[in-house]
């Protein structure tokens, strides 16, 4: 019996750091006058520690899956649990790993690790003047269910936390306009436990790093983006329980004050800008609150009017099971839609040309939802 067990010991192999895998996306190699490629951050399911980083190389049209562990084999337990945001600032790439309570900072080109910033329940990141601003669900606790969120200020060179300010409940995306940081507060947790979502945007003056005001918008805010006219586009997930639908809002400065200037009368889950076009998708819910249909449309940044409610041609949008993120390449106009499929298996990355014609689809890590384009190296760089 003992010998049998020793024999079986040989069945167990040393577990290796998993190498990345490559897929040819079979797309004409072009595009890349301004960009070299695109990083895709796949969330992975909570507790699975399967947050992975993928990279689409524009020059070779090759899709590399799970490159972080390969580039950083010495990092204990890889990239982490549930990636929630990815952005590049200067030569560094910042990845917000929500359930690992950290922001991972790597070299944007080599993906070699530079360091990490420990921030509990961190959500999104944005940058200005050498500082990173990271939204976090953890701030001052008022009572049992009332825990405010906060924004951390981090020195982008030293990776030191240099400041922290409380904002609304469960803050999400942020954008900076005119020296002010605007934070979309969702109140997502609070809505579930006491039925009160947050409805506000917190305004932080970056010169003093203090909250100077709030703007009431709609319940359960998520996305907050700034377009080229310094207008803010913010999405609300609504309150299904109370019949308040998902909507988007446009805010602009009027008389020195940022305020809501337009309500987009349709659900918007995510959006991306290119020129004067706002590409977006949103779910239409059926009576039971399940999405019956996803709409892929374009809005105009200036008029805020709908240009089209289906930019994807030939009905190929029906192939996308669970749209979870959208990116539009500025130069080529190629549209990338991330598909989280069933959230527990591989996702997919769909690529359409600027007219919405299907170009390719490739498998990704689990739950692709966040992506960033890598700028082409300037000639003077090495």
């Amino acid at each position, binding site marked *: 019996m003992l010998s049998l067990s020793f024999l079986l010991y040989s069945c167990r192999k040393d577990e290796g*750091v998993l190498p990345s895998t490559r897929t040819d996306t079979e797309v004409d190699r072009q595009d890349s006058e301004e960009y070299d490629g695109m990083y895709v951050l796949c969330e992975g399911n909570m507790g699975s520690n399967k947050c992975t980083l993928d990279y689409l190389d524009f020059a070779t049209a090759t899709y590399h899956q799970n490159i972080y562990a390969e580039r950083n084999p010495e990092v204990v*337990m890889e990239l982490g649990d549930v990636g929630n945001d990815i952005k590049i600032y200067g030569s560094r790439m910042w990845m917000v790993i929500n359930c690992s309570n950290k922001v991972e900072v790597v070299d944007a080109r080599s993906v070699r690790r530079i360091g990490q910033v420990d921030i509990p329940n961190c959500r999104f990141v944005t940058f200005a003047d050498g500082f990173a601003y990271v939204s976090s669900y953890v701030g001052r606790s008022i009572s049992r269910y009332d825990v405010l969120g906060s924004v951390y200020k981090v020195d982008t060179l030293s990776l030191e936390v240099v400041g922290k300010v409380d904002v609304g409940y469960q803050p999400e995306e942020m954008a900076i306009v005119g020296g002010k940081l605007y934070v979309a507060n969702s109140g997502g947790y609070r809505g579930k436990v006491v039925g009160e979502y947050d409805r506000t945007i917190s305004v932080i003056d970056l010169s003093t790093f203090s909250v100077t005001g709030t703007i009431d918008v709609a319940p359960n805010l998520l996305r907050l983006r700034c377009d080229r006219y310094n207008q803010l586009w913010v999405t609300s997930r609504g309150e299904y329980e109370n019949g308040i639908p998902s909507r988007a809002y446009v805010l602009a400065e009027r008389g020195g004050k940022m305020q809501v200037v337009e309500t987009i009368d349709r659900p918007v889950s995510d959006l991306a800008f290119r020129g004067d076009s706002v590409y977006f998708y949103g779910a239409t819910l059926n009576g039971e609150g399940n999405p019956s249909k996803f709409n892929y449309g374009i809005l105009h940044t200036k008029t805020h009017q709908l240009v089209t409610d289906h930019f994807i041609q030939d009905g190929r949008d029906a192939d996308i099971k669970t749209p979870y993120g959208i990116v539009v390449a500025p130069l080529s106009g190629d549209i990338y839609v991330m598909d989280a499929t069933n959230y527990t298996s591989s996702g997919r990355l769909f690529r359409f040309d600027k007219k919405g014609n299907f170009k390719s689809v490739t498998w990704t890590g689990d739950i692709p939802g966040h992506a960033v384009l890598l700028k082409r190296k300037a000639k003077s760089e090495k």
Partner: protein
Amino acid sequence: MLALLSWWTAVVVCIAQTTTTDADSLLEGQRVGEVTVVGRQTFREVIPSQTLKGKDLERLSTHNVADALRYFSGIQLKDYGGVGGVKTVDVRSMGSNHLGIYYDGVQLGNAQNGQIDLAQFSLDNMEEVTLYNGQKSSIGQSASDFGNASSIYLRTRVPFFPDGERERWRTRVKYGSSDMLRASVLWERRLSDRLVMSANGEVLTASGKYKFRYHRTAQDGTTAWDTTATRQNGDIHAERVELNLHGRLDEGSWSVKAYLYNSERGIPGAIVNNVWKRGERQADLNTFGQAHWHKNLTELLSTRWTAKYAFYDTHYTNRDETTLPVDNRYLQKELYVSTANVMDLVKDRWSVALSYDFRWNHLNSDIFRFTPPTRLSNLVAFATAANLPHVKLQGSLLASIIHDKVQGGKFKGQTHWTPALFVNVYPWQNRVLSVRAFVKRSFRMPTFNDLYYTDLGNASLRPETAMQWDLGVVLDKRFTTGWLRNVKLQADGYINRVNDKIIAYPKGQQFRWTMLNLGKVDIKGVDVEAEATLEPVHDWLITARVQYTYQDARDVTDERDAYYRDQIPYIPWHSGSAILGLHHRQWDFNYSFIYAGERYNAQENTPYNHMQPWYTSDLSLMYGFSVGKTLWRLTLEVNNVFDQNYDVIANYPMPGRNFGVSAELRF
């Protein structure tokens, strides 16, 4: 409640009145009094089962019921690690919700999520643990016994005073790794010729701390990273008290049980990058009382009545500062009454049975926007068994009429018919060889969480169904001379199909998940088990038991899925166990080995989801002696001798090598 009971009694009296003793009460009859009740042939089990009992159980140095079940073929244990970690089992890949678990004859319920945490059931007072595939194929049983895809029966010790004694005491103390201390007392007393009682109490505490290690190698074979840490927030304290009364009647028996389990524990959680400790806690107060009454009314007719009331209070909190605070209570209540009646149509040859169960379940919680659900289950089972010279047959048909409602709503009903047929053929008179087969359809109701959980539940779910086909052989031979005492070999091949599998499915960004009937699983498997007892030299007894399971369980839901025809999560293709015992006078040595082959932790069979095989070896040594009128036994155990670092569930590290010492005193 009284009105309900009397109504129910009237119904049962009208439809019932039928026969006989069954295996359980036969045993009780043998034990309770000096008079042995002669068992009748027709209601004995058609298909044998897998059992661990008495000494075999004690030798395994297992802590709880879940640990013991690992030695059964066809079973996969989901173990989250440590003394307090949740442990559930899955039989033949059908999912743990298809498994019924019976504690002294009455099913344990959890209407909230259908999961019975087997780590909460101590082996301290356990006499026998038995697994039945399909169902326990004796017909004099409650209707719910016919309803599961497979069942596990836990039977606690019944006091037995053979020599006119009046009282017995047993006390045990065990100390082990993770600062585990377990102490128990059992007091048994004969109150009269016809009445015995027992009281059993147990206390368990542990810090739940143990070292675990994760490591990876680089492509060149060098160590990429290697980390060792201590498992945190796995502490537990638990108390259990059980009171039993067993009475004997003329041609019958009765019993009453009161059970209380109280515990408070940490939920250690997944180990992921940068997170080594979590703040989830759970407190449980589980209580139930049950009563059983059985009587042979005539030579041909017997009846059996059972009642139970259970109350479960679960308090879940999350004090992890990185997440938002959670503090919720869940209260579950269950009322159950059952009658089973058997009548012999041809004495010892052909019998029929009619059983009826009523069950009421209620769940309440203080979570926001919770609407308390109620379920009424009426189960009627008709069964018949024939005992011919070379063939045993049993057929049953169960009607389940289930009504659900949520507070403020109306009851909505549904009826399901589930038949089963069992055959056992003995080609030869001596019954050394038998060939058996069964086919059974069963279903599991969606749980309250599946149906009504805030944001996630889907009230329009259908039950999940399972269809099983099984064919097997048993070779069982006892020898009166020679060094080989006993050999038993059994092998089964089976095909299962699970339809309308209830799974969590994304709803879109807004709420993320809902429950849907969206899964089909095709399962093919083989269970093989061999047992032998040898006595090569006088006074040296060797017992050996080997078990192997092959399972091919594929997701066949949708061709377009990335995981179409992939093996379903956490089901290894190969798994098995071996137990080797050596007994010499006062000494007992036991070696046990468990193996689980490679498997995947998610739907897709990719390298990212791949999990390494694991195998552990456990050793125990026991020495028994007497001092005056007291009997002592000392045990030393070493588990996971080779200190393997493994996960049963991804990111939930299991303990490495660990030790235990225990002492037992009886008088």
